[in-house]
């Protein structure tokens, strides 16, 4: 991950302080837990908080210099609008609404992606199918799906979920496929040795062995889910009264409530950061990093 030329080693000082002459003590020394300070430094979130503050400061400075509040509001205006939106407005409700839709579409998309990638991995037909489908549908903008989704799902949530699935399915499937096909033959043979086939093989061998790529797919899918959700809420039948964060942004944009627009966007960013740093980083720490599959 960092300083790729040398593997991170602990400072010598600690070792020197605990010098012990005999081999018995050496054996004890051979494996001991890290100090709390070292663990803290490993918490990337703390370091990133600093970086994030820097970005926010940059925003504020640029916005103040630009002085076009209707186009690009300052950070404090945005925060005020955010606060306002949370206290008096419906921002949280909107976010909740969007999150529910997003999670639904995301879950369906991820499942389909897994199915497709496993099929592509297991059979030549599946492979051809996946390549055709991805090449065909992946470049299509959501607008292209409007007619069929209207026919199949009508107005409202179901159509938006459909668009979401379209947004997240293909990149996830592509990443899963790369992950699967990149597994070393030895690991695959080990799995086969235990008589694992079909779904058991996929679940026990393919998924963990391709976990870094799966995670990347999930990350990309998450981000594109948001993007598409917001776009979809604008294009698709939002019924009055309902509507998520995308609609919140659109409405405020049309009323030139720019600070509120940015408050909406900031909300998405904050959710994104939380998901990235709490969920995904946590998963990474517990999986690929611990397994030595990410360096």
């Amino acid at each position, binding site marked *: 991950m960092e300083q790729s030329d040398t593997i991170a080693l602990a400072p010598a000082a600690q070792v020197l302080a605990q010098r012990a002459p005999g081999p018995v003590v050496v054996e004890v020394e051979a494996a001991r837990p890290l100090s709390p300070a070292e663990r803290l430094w490993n918490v990337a979130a703390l370091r990133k908080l600093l970086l994030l503050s820097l970005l926010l400061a940059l925003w504020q400075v640029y916005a103040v210099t630009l002085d076009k509040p209707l186009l690009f509001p300052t950070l404090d205006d945005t925060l005020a609008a955010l606060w306002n939106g949370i206290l008096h407005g419906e921002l949280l409700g909107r976010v909740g609404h969007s999150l529910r839709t997003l999670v639904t579409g995301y879950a369906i998309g991820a499942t389909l992606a897994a199915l497709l990638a496993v099929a592509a991995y297991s059979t030549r037909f599946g492979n051809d199918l996946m390549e055709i489908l991805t090449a065909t549908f992946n470049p299509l903008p959501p607008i292209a799906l409007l007619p069929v989704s209207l026919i199949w799902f*009508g107005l409202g949530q179901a159509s938006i979920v459909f668009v979401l699935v379209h947004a997240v399915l293909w990149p996830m499937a592509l990443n899963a496929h790369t992950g699967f096909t990149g597994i070393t033959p030895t690991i695959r043979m080990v799995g086969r040795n235990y008589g694992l086939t079909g779904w058991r093989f996929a679940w026990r061998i393919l998924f963990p062995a391709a976990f870094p790529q799966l995670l990347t797919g999930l990350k990309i899918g998450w981000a594109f889910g948001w993007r598409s959700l917001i776009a979809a809420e604008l294009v698709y039948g939002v019924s*009055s009264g309902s509507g998520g964060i995308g609609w919140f942004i659109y409405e405020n944009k*049309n*009323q030139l409530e720019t600070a509120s627009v940015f408050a909406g966007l900031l909300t998405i960013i904050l959710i994104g950061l939380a998901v990235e740093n709490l969920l995904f980083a946590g998963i990474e720490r517990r999986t690929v990093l611990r397994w030595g599959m990410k360096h």
Partner: protein
Amino acid sequence: EVKEVRFAKQYGLSYLPLIVMEQQKLVEKHAKAAGLGQLKASYATLGSGAAMNDALLSGSIDYASGGVAPMLTIWGKSRGEVRGVAALDTIPIYLNSVNPSVKGVKDLSDKDKIALPAVKVSIQAVLLQMAAAKAFGANEYDRLDRLTVSMKHPDAMAAILSGRSEVTGHLASPPFMFQELKDKRVRTVVNSYDVLGGPHTFDLVWATKKFHDENPKTYRAVLAALDEAVAYIGKNKRAAAELYLKASGSKEPISEVYEILSRQPVHYTTTPLKVSAFADFMNRTGSLKEKPKGWKDLFFPEIHGKKGS
């Protein structure tokens, strides 16, 4: 005075005056006449009123064009720093329905979803509120809002004509409303001219006060060009239709375009009509914070001589 003046129009027949200006190089002509020399006029096409306002605010364009709603919004938000230049046309908005049991506003029920370009914020949504206020009383203006859904015009038309979706109504503008009416099932339930008591402006042009103040000659030349374009359309409908088809590359038959241009309710004029009525209503419902002191408050003085409202 600037060397180049940048316009932005949107897609559709209602921006015909700008198309005529572009095709016939009217701005260049009037600028030369005003002694401004070789003024360059460029025209971009944008996708929405919101993009229009962004472009204007960022200084990417000098003249924005679009519906009444985005113009009023930016007028209110900028506290008069942005004002209307002139109107482009008066065009009605129809509420077309395919539900045979709906004959008036009061017949609309939960089964009738009404498509419009954007719920709450579009001029169509405002119009529906006006119709509701008229039918149910001023306080009940938002009674029909829950029936509305956001859809782009072509999608909405396809939806009601296909008869497969729960959308039965469409607050349409030309050419969609006329195309819809060719289908026997479609009837007009609401006509905006009835709601407002007469013809009203549909699209207009607006600009910043800064541009207006710093480029008085250019501004006047542009206004003159606009007037000429409007007059040209009034006199040469077929030629204007040809210009439109040439400029847009549209495959519609010329007869169809000509027919729309010659229709009674469609009229091209720079005179703003009933803009203040929209503004007052929007102010009452809270979607426009400022209240204009009359229509002249919304426009730059050069147009104040017309019989606007």
